[in-house]
């Protein structure tokens, strides 16, 4: 047993660290480490910077224009980016639809879509969830009917998707649609790529409890989708969807982000005073910080064990559920302590959390914390709620 990274891996870490230090603008870093809202341009700018270095698709193989990194390198890359305050990569194109197109798309689809994803020329969003089907994804109802007319082979799509993250920015959406309503739930589903400029698509904002516009409803009314945008075979979409969910799990534990957030927590708690002493020296508060730091240490080790299994080609399987549950619990716990650290100054509320300009009220670092705490409630809900992850663990890992 040897827990150290190899010299090659350590050199790789230095390379990533140096690159991010040189290329990440200070203003963008400032926004990220203070959880201020990023614009579309912020994300696109960073994605293009990575793309120019050949790192636009960190998980992509070389044959599709990726760097061909293994799981450990991807982990190191994401950890370094997070530690340096780089924006997280928007996963919908790079980590979700791209692997599906690589695995199941035609050569034409690969040529048409993949380059625009890693270069951020096209922004993708996800059309999975529906109002009536949250964790029970297979119950989705959005209908796609195949037909032929003078303009050729196509689908007509009707229905509604929801919780479409950053859909307001998107050029394309990948959707699960029901193509055979007679078949058993999982059998009659297809995987379609839809141009967001298609007539009949309406995007409506959903404002979340932090006052932000991050998610949307997407309505489809007789939207015509060329059949060439079907991935793989008709009615086999569930297979592709499950494949995608497997890919979504990479870096699910958020170790790098949590490390950065604990640093922020300690900075804040070292500045805030209680009983004439820094809050971080308060025994009760410091015990809470220590507990989270310790949990994160253990999770980092657990994550490395999963990575090591992957490198030895043992399937990670439901171990990803462990990383998801514990990782999101830790991230949420940190936001709770950040709020507690600034006390009542977490209450002055800036909707949209767009600015951290010096105001009259409270310390500057406190301005976004209330909204951030509210926003992070999503972590234990999305990507398969933590309760669903516990079902997966108990059924698939424990055999109950």
């Amino acid at each position, binding site marked *: 047993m040897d827990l150290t990274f190899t010299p090659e891996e350590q050199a790789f870490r230095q390379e990533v660290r140096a690159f991010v230090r040189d290329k990440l603008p200070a203003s963008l870093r400032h926004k990220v480490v203070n959880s201020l809202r990023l614009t579309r341009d912020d994300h696109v700018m960073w994605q293009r910077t990575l793309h120019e270095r050949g790192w636009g698709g960190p998980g992509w193989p070389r044959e599709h224009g990726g760097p061909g990194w293994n799981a450990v390198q991807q982990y190191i890359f994401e950890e370094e980016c997070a530690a340096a305050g780089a924006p997280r990569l928007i996963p919908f194109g790079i980590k979700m639809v791209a692997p599906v197109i690589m695995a199941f798309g035609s050569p034409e689809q690969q040529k048409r879509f993949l380059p625009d994803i890693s270069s951020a020329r096209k922004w993708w969003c996800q059309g999975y969830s529906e109002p009536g089907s949250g964790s029970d994804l297979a119950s989705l109802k959005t209908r796609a009917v195949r037909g032929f007319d003078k303009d050729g082979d196509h689908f007509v799509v009707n229905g509604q998707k929801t919780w479409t993250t950053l859909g307001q920015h998107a050029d394309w959406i990948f959707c699960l649609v029901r193509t055979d309503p007679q078949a058993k739930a999982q059998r009659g589903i297809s995987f379609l790529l839809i141009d967001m400029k298609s007539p009949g698509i309406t995007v409506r904002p959903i404002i979340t409890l932090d006052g932000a516009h991050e998610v949307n409803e997407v309505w489809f009314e007789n939207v015509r989708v060329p059949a060439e945008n079907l991935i793989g075979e008709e009615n086999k979409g569930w297979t592709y969807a499950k494949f995608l969910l497997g890919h979504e799990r990479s870096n699910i534990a958020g170790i790098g982000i949590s490390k950065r957030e604990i640093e922020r927590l300690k900075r804040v708690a070292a500045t805030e005073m209680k009983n004439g002493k820094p809050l971080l020296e308060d025994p009760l508060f410091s015990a809470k910080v220590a507990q989270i730091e310790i949990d994160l240490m253990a999770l980092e080790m657990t994550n490395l064990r999963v990575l090591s299994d992957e490198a030895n080609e043992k399937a990670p399987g439901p171990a990803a559920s462990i990383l998801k549950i514990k990782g999101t619990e830790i991230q949420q716990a940190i936001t709770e302590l950040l709020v507690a650290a600034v006390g009542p100054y977490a209450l002055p509320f800036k909707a949209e959390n767009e600015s951290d300009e010096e105001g009259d009220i409270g310390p500057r670092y406190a301005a976004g914390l209330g909204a951030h705490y509210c926003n992070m409630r999503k972590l234990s809900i999305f990507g398969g709620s933590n309760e669903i992850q516990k*079902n997966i663990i*108990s059924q698939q890992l424990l055999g109950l």
Partner: protein
Amino acid sequence: MDFSFSEEQHQLQDAISRFVQGDYSFERRHKILKSADGWSREVWQGLADLGVLAMNIPEADGGLGYGPIETLLAMQSAGPALLCEPLLDSAVIATALVRDFGSPEQRAELLPAMGGGERIVVLAHTEAAGRGQPVWVETSAKKSGDGYLLNGHKAVVSLAPAADELLVSARMSGQPGEADGVAVFRVSKDAPGLVLKAFKTLDGRRAADVVLTDVKVPAASLLGAPTTSATAAIDRALDIGLAALCAESLGVMEATVNATIEYLKTRQQFGQPIGRFQALQHRTADMLLHLEQSRSMAYLAAMHCNVADDTQRRKTLSAAKVVIGNACRFIGQQSVQLHGGMGMTEELNVSHFFKRLMAIELSFGDTDTHLQRFAALTQRDIPLAA
């Protein structure tokens, strides 16, 4: 980065698993616990024959020259058997202290005998007022003629009744809490003035409060060189022991979780196995979360228990003890709860796992003590402004 074990390490693991499964059944353990001594010399010799007692002894001293990883595997494999023999106390902690702090003569005299199973040695160090602080030593050693006079009270010394001799820490100078001025003495268990108040602990093991009243020991009984304070060596030996304890707890927790899952699959209520109920499934999933986090920390503790940098070693081992202490409590409590009334009975192994897990949580500094130590060690590294 590599989390796999070598072929040789797997063989050791298998040999111990086979030994405890064959020679240390639940029924046999029960009989041993009920015997006058509460432990078995026959089992001890069996462990010696397997080489387990010699694993922490260097080859130059007649041992196998293994290290913390082999100790991890041995303790983890032995965990489910809930051994009542002083494996941790003699073969890990006392062995490490003699190995790293003893004079060449002491090593030559003690280590081969300890590794062969002929001599059992236990460190008598903790005191009631110390509450997990390794430097708290009130017991005193005063020069007297060509030897020393020891006076003091050592609290809840695990497996002291099984020992042939004790390694007693005592203060030659300074105040409790100070690192300097502490020495360790070899004291025979039948030395005049030494009283063992023996008792059973909650988990069935034997322990004793050791009361020393003017116990006279010769100068040669001083462990190591007279000029060096023993505090650092004791601290390191205890950390090696703590890592081994973490490994043992991993084995106990695995057995506890497995027993609980088996029960949930077989026990029928309301016309179905109770494992079908989501409320119980989620609790079991949480048990697995605790177990996997503990596994990670037991590995980390094993890899760090020999690190010379005190801060880094203590930080890591305290973190491990916190994660594992919390897990011991959660997994122990849930296993009893999920077994229902059966979990309350002495006849079921789960109740014995529960008590061992509780004892582990309280040993070597409890969760709060280590949380506090970790906080103190990490508060200093506050990052600079972003």
